[in-house]
């Protein structure tokens, strides 16, 4: 098993957001995590990436047989966990090529590989950028600075393409994208999929799942997974909205 989350509780500034998450992900699988706003979807994504403002109060996360929660964010990335941010951060003054190469070399060094040369990097960059239809001039721009929403999301997938993670967590990568941009992003993700890696796609909308087809769909509500199913669950949610699930949960409690 690649990832096993058990009874995970987490809070932000003293408020408990995750209230007992259980999730198992195997290599080769795509899991969609859906839910209404404020249900804890993004919190889960950030906890897995190691964001320090989110305090894990209970539970465990085992990734590839290791205790993920004990790792620094950089070590998680080096071990193959990748978070595509909902709101990618603008870093004025840091050139995208420099950023990508520094990140790639950090991961390579951790895994006992030599640094990539400038020449090899450029070759690789051209290949990866083609995948998500990005212009080469992008490499000279500061990281995310002045990028449109679509460019920022494509940039996340480009970074994913460089780092070739085992576990990719897409945090609302579809939100704010028009259909053309969504197709490009989804195409990029699909091209990177193989039997050795897995995807957790966190989304509010079913639309993304037309293009990145999930094996499992989980519904998160009030910090718990309240329903799991196959891809048909997403369609069901699309038709009925989250209200019926909310009502079920309220009735039980």
């Amino acid at each position, binding site marked *: 098993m690649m990832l096993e989350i058990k009874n995970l509780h987490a809070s932000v500034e003293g408020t408990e957001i995750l209230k007992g998450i259980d999730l198992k992900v195997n290599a080769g699988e795509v899991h969609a995590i859906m839910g209404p706003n404020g249900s804890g979807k993004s919190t889960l994504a950030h906890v897995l990436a190691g964001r320090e403002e989110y305090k894990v109060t209970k539970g465990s996360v085992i990734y590839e047989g290791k205790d993920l929660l004990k790792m620094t964010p950089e070590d998680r990335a080096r071990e193959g966990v990748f978070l595509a941010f909902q709101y990618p951060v603008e870093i004025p*003054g840091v050139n995208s090529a420099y950023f990508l190469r520094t990140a790639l070399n*950090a991961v390579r060094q951790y895994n006992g590989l030599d640094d990539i040369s400038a020449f090899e990097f450029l070759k690789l960059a051209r290949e990866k950028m083609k995948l998500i239809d990005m212009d080469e001039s992008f490499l000279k721009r500061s990281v995310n600075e002045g990028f449109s929403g679509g460019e920022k999301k494509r940039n996340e997938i480009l970074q994913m393409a460089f780092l070739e993670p085992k576990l990719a967590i897409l945090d609302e990568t579809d939100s704010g994208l028009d259909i053309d941009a969504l197709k490009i992003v989804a195409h990029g993700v699909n091209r990177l999929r193989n039997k050795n890696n897995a995807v957790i796609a966190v989304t509010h909308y079913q639309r993304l799942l037309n293009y990145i087809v999930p094996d499992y769909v989980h519904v998160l509500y009030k910090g718990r997974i309240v329903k799991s199913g196959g891809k048909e669950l997403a369609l069901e949610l699309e038709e009925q909205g989250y209200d019926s699930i909310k009502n079920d949960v309220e009735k039980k409690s």
Partner: protein
Amino acid sequence: MSVNIKEKIWYLANFEVFEKKLNGGARTPLHQLRKAALQHVKKNGFPSIREEEWRFTNVSSIESTNFKPVDKKEQEEIDRNTLQEYLFEDLTPNRLVFVNGRFSSQLSSLSGLAKNIKFENLALELKNNPDVLLPYLAKQADYKKHAFIALNTAFLSEGTFIYIPNNIIVDAPLYILYISRDVGESFVTHPRNLYVVGSNTQVKIIENYVGFGEEKYFTNPVSEIILNENAIVDHYKIQQENKSAYHIAVTQVHQKKDSNYRSNSFSFGSVLARNDLNTVLDGEGAECTLNGLYMANGKQHVDNHTLIDHAKPHCNSHELYKGILDDRARAVFSGKIYVRPDAQKTDAIQSNQNMLLSDDAIVDTKPQLEIFADDVRCTHGGTVGQLDDEGVFYLRSRGISKQYARNIMVQAFAGQVTHKIKLEGLREKMEGLVFSRLRDGHLSDK
């Protein structure tokens, strides 16, 4: 104050020594100017923190330290290997080097400059060709307005004279290196620079103030820069004095029609540094760009005062100063933009941005617009912030270590100034200087 009243104040004692060495020079009209400037200092003393322009910068320790003039014999040998990285031989073959205020012909190098261009020790020109420079000297920097201009003027002798006739493009930069090294006692130097740039002329000038050793000394430079019509000057001033040194500098610029003055000021060293940079846009279509970067840690104090005087219509000014402060360092930024009644269609942009890496660092930022024309566009802003944690996390989430991520974020903040350096080789040197100062997202001493 700790000065013994019975003893002479150091600059008065120094002046007697200085005057004796002038020989025949003491009878010239220039010497009358020196004496008048000295009288001004004697009468008014140094500015106190009760004066608005010096409110945050206390110079009483300069007044109370017994700074000695430098004896010529003491500056002789200097190890060329230690010096090598400061000679910038990869950038330009044209350099003047001064050691403890004295011109060093062995360390200087002049090759390939056209004969009609002057790039010389000012003292030598004063002796040999005073008629060329006297019409310009001390015409811009008014000793009556500034105690440290007065002090410099009283001791006016060595420094750099640049004269470029009309219609010349000087390709290689003119590089001036002022080195200070320990001599066993506190000493003072008063470098005096005069750059006269002709019409339709283009030149790049680099001034670098470098301190070796650990002893206390005081560098008191004054630069006057005159841009004639359509002249373009790229001026780089790098201050990397040692961490015990005082550096109080004034640069006074006068710009004629369609001239373009671009300043890049880097302040890294000194326990107390003050840079006054004033430019008068005194002809239609004149433009200036003032970029600055200051980094301070420990107990360093760095003060940048700029004044842009929009005296004529259709002039543009752009100003960006950025500061990075750590430990108990303190920075002051005062940016005055003065728009005279005549100066319609003025376009002035000013920004001062500060990054604090500790809770104890302090910044006082004060933009001041004084606008007396009605058809103008002037904007200004000052910010004080911390290292962006979101950015650090973003970099870490891509496998970059926390320490390196923090360094990258600080470097990026500085990069918005260093990227503006047009001379590629110099840009790399400045980026290297910034990076060499970073340790785990904090500033360290090299």
